[in-house]
């Protein structure tokens, strides 16, 4: 019998990746997989040039173009000069430093957090970083994955390591059976509404409980993806048979006997009985209903059937000021309900909800129906592979008949950077991850919700309780 102190999965992975732990210094943590994209990498490559050094290990580095790409006519040169320059700079840098790039037109191109898992590059037990806060997505495989800034991208390119202090650990346990119309997006919006947009800052979260276990890999990714929206450094879910089944046969996953060996190793990862967390939170799945946000941070969420709080219901004065500013921006009244509120746009996409399962959920609602006249609906698959699968399953026809516009992969209207933007003052119900002021375009107004809730809003043209439709 081992006398070792029980460890959490987070501690096991972290400790196995410390190259150097020195008194007075943060840990030098080895990074197994580094994903890069066009927006947060150019200055990092310039840094390497200035220092006259190469990429430490190109085999651990994968690039794609996603944030700044158009979702229409991807075969043509990018119209906007600065965007084009940024994507071309990525091309030049990847060619010069020997980094694999899944560029526009490549069958593996797509949103960086969608392609890593679908290609099997993301694996249990790994450490992964990317110059993007939604890197937490990859934690769904039982790995440590977190977003970094460009100076840190440069560090990882140069040394395959990052200097980091070990965050505290938080366990969020959700038990019970999910109700009708409730999907993983509702779980994470519910958690964030409970603990606020800063409730997990300084922590690395592990999601556990039978409600989490019951979820597919794709649904788990949605939950881990939004860990950053409560401030967490990252979020993970211990691997199990669902994980191993997903991994099997993926292009860059171990194959044959190597796969079986890997699974045996991965089975050692889950937290030991008696492992201690700094904070433990428990929720009952039965309390979770379809969720929607009403404000300008993801913590400002509620059940779709609820009403927005009144100013008096908020305890702190400071909070009241920000709350009023937020509702003013959104053009909403404190104390009012959102059910029945007309929307102008429906955005189905982003690293949160643009996997094939999300598109299937949407299709299940809209099949044989037409969108409302007052809405414009964009469906943006997360990757070329998702797009191809959607075509194979005929989902494109379902969307076409409903009057939805199915475009090509990219981050699209999630972040108001590329051509896809929600116009000023317009309301968009969105499957993405952030409802910040101007996030989807200057003065755009965002309601975050699940793919099911977004799909039903596309049909009715207003905020609707999806449970009335299924």
């Amino acid at each position, binding site marked *: 019998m081992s006398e070792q102190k029980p460890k959490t999965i987070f501690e096991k992975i972290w400790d196995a990746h410390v190259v150097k732990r020195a008194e007075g210094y943060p840990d030098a943590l080895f990074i197994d997989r580094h994903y890069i994209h066009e927006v947060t990498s150019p200055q990092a490559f310039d840094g390497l040039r200035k220092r006259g050094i190469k990429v430490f290990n190109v085999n651990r580095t994968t690039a794609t173009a996603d944030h700044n790409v158009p979702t229409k006519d991807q075969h043509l040169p990018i119209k906007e000069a*600065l965007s084009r320059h940024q994507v071309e700079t990525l091309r030049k840098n990847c060619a010069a430093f020997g980094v694999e790039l899944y560029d526009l037109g490549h069958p593996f191109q797509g949103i960086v957090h969608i392609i890593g898992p679908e290609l099997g590059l993301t694996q249990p037990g790994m450490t992964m970083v990317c110059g993007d806060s939604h890197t937490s997505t990859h934690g769904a495989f039982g790995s440590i994955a977190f977003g*970094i800034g460009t100076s840190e991208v440069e560090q990882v390119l140069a040394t395959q390591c990052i*200097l980091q202090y070990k965050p505290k650990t938080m366990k969020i346990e959700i038990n019970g059976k999910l109700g009708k119309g409730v999907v993983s997006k509702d779980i994470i919006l519910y958690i964030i509404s409970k603990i606020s947009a800063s409730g997990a800052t300084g922590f690395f979260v592990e999601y556990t409980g039978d409600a989490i276990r019951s979820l597919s890999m794709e649904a788990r990714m949605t939950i881990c993806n939004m860990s950053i929206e409560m401030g967490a450094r990252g979020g993970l879910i211990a691997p199990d048979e669902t994980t191993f089944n997903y991994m099997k046969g993926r292009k860059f996953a171990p194959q044959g006997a190597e796969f079986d060996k890997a699974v045996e190793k991965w089975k050692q990862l889950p937290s030991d009985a008696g492992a201690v967390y700094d904070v433990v939170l428990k929720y009952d799945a039965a309390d979770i209903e379809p969720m929607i946000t009403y404000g300008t941070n993801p913590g400002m969420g509620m059940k779709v059937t609820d009403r927005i709080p009144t100013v008096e219901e908020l305890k702190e004065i400071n909070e009241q000021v920000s709350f009023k500013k937020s509702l003013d921006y959104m053009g909403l009244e404190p104390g009012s309900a959102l059910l029945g509120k007309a929307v102008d746009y429906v955005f189905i996409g982003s690293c949160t909800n643009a996997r094939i399962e999300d598109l299937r959920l949407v299709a299940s609602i809209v099949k044989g129906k037409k969108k409302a006249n007052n809405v414009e609906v964009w469906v943006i698959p997360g990757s070329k592979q998702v797009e191809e699968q959607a075509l194979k399953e005929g989902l494109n026809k379902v969307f076409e008949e409903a009057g939805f516009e199915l475009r090509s992969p990219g981050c699209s209207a999630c972040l*108001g950077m590329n051509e896809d933007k929600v116009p000023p003052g317009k309301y968009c119900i969105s499957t993405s991850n952030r409802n910040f002021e101007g996030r989807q375009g200057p003065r755009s107004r965002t309601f975050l919700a699940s793919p099911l809730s977004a799909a039903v809003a596309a049909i009715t043209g207003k905020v609707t309780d999806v449970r009335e439709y299924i």
Partner: protein
Amino acid sequence: MKDKFTILRSTAVPLPAENIDTDQIIPARFLKATTREGFGDNLFRDWRYTPADEPISDFVLNNVSFSGKILVAGKNFGCGSSREHAAWAIYDYGFRVVVSSFFADIFKNNALNNAVLPVVVTDKFLQSLLETLQQNPQTEVIVDLVNQQISFDGKLEKFEINAYKKECLINGYDDIDYLLSLNKEIREFDLAH
């Protein structure tokens, strides 16, 4: 090698909103540059200018009464996107310190990597500083990194900073210099995994 930071005496700019996310600090449409310079012009762009690029007069950066190298902001500053452009924009505009009662993790690291010192103070101290600045924009704020203290108008508070990061700021060191010194150990680790 970056700027060295020991002590800063400056007037300060109050921005009391909470949960200021990095999309407000620098909206995504301004992230297209491939260098680190010039982001200051678009710092808080959509709070600072109308869609027609006219300055919004009641926004604090457009108020001539306020200036200085210290930004004082509400709780949970820098949440959201990991874009380091937010730290570059703050630096490029001329700020060297951001004071708040709480910072988002990634922003805090990005700031420290760009010679911008995030100073965490208590809610009470923050409120007092914000109120004092509103009443007297000429108030001098002193941020002393060596002794880890911030003061104004005879009020003083100690602040925490990691010893390693403090040393980096005082000497203008980069994390990367330290990591490059571990090259041999990292190579061995890489081969074994």
